[in-house]
């Protein structure tokens, strides 16, 4: 179905203080694919993203296609309530053209231009709800017309009802713009519903393939159970 490879990862390993945090990770991603990365807390999912972006030292190969624009949204943003920075100023850190900023906000479903201009853009970033902030972060990620989006837990801090909306939006944007999306998620329902492929990691690769085929009880037991002391996330049993 997919033709063009955008990313090849071969034998990737990351270690901190001589301790392996990730090892033997190999996979590839094709253009337009939605790849979900799942695993328990502390399994190295965020570390994998940071290695893919070249933010930390690693061994092995990470080969991105040339001329790709990659947008990354990390899981943890340190935005305190009293940070004097409004939405417009935040988005302007990436894109100075106001029209393009408004356009990006409309794309993520904030369609009322009056509301955007008079309220949202002037709102302090730290005063936004979890759902609003995630929409702003998706708008942020779209500002420079990327080909690839990397989202680390795009729905952390959002209530359950809001999660689906954010994933629907990501899926719609991905389809419309032929984006390749890599997302870290703890919610297997989301993975079944939105991802073409999944890789499960727990410091090493446990499974890789189409979610309905590879996320079998055996793989899940290896991923979340066994000798590890990690806990299954509560959404997992849905």
């Amino acid at each position, binding site marked *: 179905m997919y033709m063009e490879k955008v990313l090849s990862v071969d034998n990737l390993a990351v270690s901190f203080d001589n301790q392996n945090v990730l090892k033997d990770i190999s996979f590839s991603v094709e253009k337009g694919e939605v790849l979900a990365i799942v695993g328990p807390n502390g399994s190295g999912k965020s570390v994998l993203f940071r290695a893919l972006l070249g933010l930390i030292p690693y061994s092995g190969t990470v080969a991105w296609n040339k001329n790709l624009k990659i947008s990354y949204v990390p899981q943890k*943003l340190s935005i305190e309530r009293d940070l004097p920075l409004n939405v417009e*100023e935040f988005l302007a850190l*990436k894109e100075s053209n106001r029209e393009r900023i408004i356009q990006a906000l409309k794309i993520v479903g904030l369609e009322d231009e009056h509301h955007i201009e008079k309220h949202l853009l002037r709102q*302090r970033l730290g005063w936004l709800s979890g759902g609003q902030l995630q929409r702003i972060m998706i708008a942020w990620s779209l500002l420079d017309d990327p080909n690839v989006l990397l989202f680390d837990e795009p729905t952390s801090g959002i209530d359950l009802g809001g999660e689906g909306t954010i994933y629907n939006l990501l899926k719609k944007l991905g389809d419309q713009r032929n984006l390749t999306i890599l997302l870290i998620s703890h919610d297997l329902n989301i993975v079944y519903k939105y991802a073409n492929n999944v890789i499960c990691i727990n410091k090493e690769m446990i499974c890789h393939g189409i979610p309905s085929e590879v996320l079998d009880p055996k793989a899940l037991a290896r991923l979340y159970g066994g000798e590890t002391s990690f806990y299954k996330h509560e959404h997992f049993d849905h």
Partner: protein
Amino acid sequence: MAARRVSTNMNILTINPLGLQLIVGVLIGIGAGFLGSFMVLKRMSLVGDALSHVALPGIAIAIMLSLNPFFGAFGTLFIGIIGIWFLERKTMLPSETLVGILFTLSLAIGILITPEPELLEALFGDINKIGSTDLFLTAGAVLITIILMQKIYKGVILDIISRDLTRSMGISVNTTNLIFLILVAIVVALGLKVAGTLLMGSLVIIPAAAAKNISINLKDYTLYAGIFGALCAASGILIAYYFSLPPGPMVVLASGALFLITLLLKEKK
């Protein structure tokens, strides 16, 4: 010696001494307030305070060599900052610890080598002893600080929100932080004229903290911090002049009063 320098300079530039103090004080207030606004966001306010003490040996050396104390202060601050930047990367010790060590060592050396008559001036500042050279030096340094800050502010703000996000956009956090620290060295070295090594920290912290009380966005925040810095410097210098008090502590007290007013305004919101 310093008094002679003032009178010579006054011949070149016929501004009365109070006018000169006010202009230099306001310029320093703008620079310290503006840069301080970013230091407060980066949670570096106390680092700036401690760093100001590193200037003391530099001031002593400049006095001994009959140089403008700014250059001596900037010299040791620059060495201190590069040292911290380097050691932080090599030893993985937090900059807070390194600044703490450097600050006490510098203060000890500074107190030993600063000639006694100048020690009080170095510790608490004395804007009475400035000349027209200081005016040009201050104007140039504040201008450079504001221009460079405009160039690096995106990296500074993004780094506060997320270092990974900043680096993923190809912005070098290390370079940005180094430039920022050099700007801190410049502003601290300038502010020593007004508040001395012991009180300089207040010039960068208080106007910014006051501005934060009443600002929603970054533009207002940095603007108010600069304006408040200027207001506090001017009012402190004027009060000191008319009541024959030392200017440094008066500038700090004026800042404190302004902070209280903004705090009340914040509570009312």
